[in-house]
């Protein structure tokens, strides 16, 4: 035992130059966020021009800059309608839904301290779907007062409530003293999903022909039929959730150490968890209300980002929002061009890409954790 080890000075020199300390990925993360922001802008512009009608990038940009009302002859009237009333709401709504799916996945994973938690996989989306389907089928009868109360917002509110109730049940079942068992969570998710599907099946059985058509898209997940009205009803929930999410970063980081340590660091854990659960439910509920079950965005996007910028939620959450928005827009572009002039429900595209990815995550983790 040498003296030098024991006599280590209590405070070492500070200010060791401007080099980034090892293990500090915040600089990289900020750069990635800027790049993702630019990528999202490019993707939105690309989506605006891609489709059955071919308006050029330049004409679209100049139309956007001049505004809808100005009498420009850059775009034909037909293209103008396609862009302003069909593509633009679809793109903005698609970006919002992609962002909210990815953010709700990232928040849920942080909350459950578990990278496999995703609203789609653990049954929360199914709960939101149950709420939405209930309103569609029972809106004329049992739930008429609910519709009267919330009018245009009835669908997203019902989906929000469904998602909230299912998240709370899941949390109560899968979490003991702040620790979530991966196996219990996934199994509880299967049970909750099956339960929601049973009720949705029952409601489908009761539905009339018009309601059946409305219901079909829930099971597949689609951005078709996006319009400004849908955005006005679901948008506030999504915007609210996205605005609150950056404030969850610090707490989710602390929570990674466990609930007790998070509390010791000064986080009011119980209150924090309530806010996080409401954010997840609002984001998931609103997305499902508009687009049905679009799966795997919430698990794929945060996982990819953690590989690059690490799990620091202060950066992971905004980065997830941006990448989720871009990826969903790309998936939507694929879904509406791959079998043109018809279009594929986007949920098929995300599941076809996302499910194998999920299996890959499982394989990678198999050695690390005991499932």
């Amino acid at each position, binding site marked *: *035992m040498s003296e030098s080890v*024991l006599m280590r000075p209590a405070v*070492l020199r*500070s*200010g060791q130059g401007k080099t980034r300390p*090892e293990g500090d990925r915040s600089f990289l993360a900020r750069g990635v966020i800027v790049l993702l922001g630019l990528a999202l802008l490019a993707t939105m512009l690309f989506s605006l021009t891609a489709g059955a009608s071919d308006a050029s990038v330049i004409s679209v940009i100049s139309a956007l800059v001049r505004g809808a009302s100005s009498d420009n002859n850059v775009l034909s009237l037909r293209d103008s309608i396609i862009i302003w009333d069909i593509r633009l709401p679809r793109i903005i709504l698609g970006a919002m839904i992609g962002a909210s799916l990815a953010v709700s996945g990232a928040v849920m994973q942080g909350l459950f301290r578990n990278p496999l938690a995703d609203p789609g996989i653990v049954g929360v989306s199914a709960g939101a779907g149950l709420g939405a389907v209930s309103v569609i089928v029972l809106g004329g009868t049992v739930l008429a007062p609910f519709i009267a109360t919330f009018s245009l917002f009835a669908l997203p509110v019902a989906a929000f409530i469904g998602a909230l109730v299912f998240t709370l049940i899941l949390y109560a079942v899968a979490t003991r003293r702040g620790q979530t068992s991966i196996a219990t969570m996934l199994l509880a998710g299967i049970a909750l999903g099956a339960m929601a599907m049973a009720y949705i099946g029952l409601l489908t059985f009761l539905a009339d022909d018009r309601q059946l058509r409305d219901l079909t898209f829930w099971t597949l997940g689609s951005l078709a039929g996006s319009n400004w009205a849908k955005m006005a009803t679901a948008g506030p929930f999504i915007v609210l959730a996205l605005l609150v999410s950056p404030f969850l970063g610090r707490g989710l980081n602390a929570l990674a150490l466990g609930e007790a*340590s998070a509390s*010791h660091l000064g986080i009011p*854990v119980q209150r924090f968890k309530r806010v996080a659960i409401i954010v997840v439910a609002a984001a998931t509920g609103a997305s499902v209300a508009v687009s049905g079950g679009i799966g795997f965005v919430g698990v794929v996007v945060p996982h990819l980002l953690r590989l690059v910028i690490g*799990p620091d939620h202060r950066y992971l959450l905004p980065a997830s929002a941006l990448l989720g928005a871009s990826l969903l827009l790309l998936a939507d572009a694929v879904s509406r061009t791959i079998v043109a002039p018809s279009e594929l429900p986007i949920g098929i595209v995300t599941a076809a890409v996302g499910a194998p990815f999920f299996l890959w995550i499982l394989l990678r983790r198999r050695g690390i954790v005991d499932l």
Partner: protein
Amino acid sequence: MISLSDVSVVLGRKAIIKEASFNAQAGALTVIVGPNGSGKTTLMRALSGDLPFTGRITINGHSLGHLKPWQMAAMRAILPQSTSLSFPFTVREIVRLGLTSGRSGATHDVAENLPDEALALVDLAGFGGRFYQELSGGEQQRVQLARVLCQVWQPVLDGQPRFLFLDEPVSSLDIKHQLIIMQIAHAFATRGGGVIAILHDLNLTSMYADRVVVMHGGRIDSVGTPAEVLTDDRILRVYECALKVGALPDKHVPFVLPQSAVM
């Protein structure tokens, strides 16, 4: 000062802590010893605000029940026995979490370098870029200590002493690092802060403790200096093990005491 009076903790239907009373002074290293299951960790969890208890616990005169999490975070930091992570944080990112409460006491530009200084202090300089999950148990424990040190970097803030609660801080460490960690705790107390540590090693306890709290069956058996507390009778009664304090082994049996390292 941390003060406990008549603190009892019931988990389920079982009384784990029964009417515990003692004071832990600032500027002193208070060590809690006792056999497995004597209630040491439960007592520390009650002190940390993790468990409901009856009786009264105060930190610097403030009753624990009236303090918000962020107020407590400014007064004390807690090293848990072990911490597992489910996300691939780097060592530096983990240590940086100690700055969450924003009350390290360091000035802003120093605070940015604090994680690196704290890592150097626990003999992990250069480990900042490693992944936490890839470290050994002993290294992980020291990373957590570095994080905890960041939280209360200045042992005294705004004239009020701050406290370190260490639950078996040296349990998975080699002898060199046991000494380094105890030295850090000792220095924290010397500079005006208070330390409460749970230890199993009676030699380290004797070497570093200013006060020893002996727990037995959920009760405080005795409180005093190491010389007062570590007696043959008490060790036999509490640990149910007939040991002789200060007895040397036979001449040909090698033995190594931590005491031989210092001064």
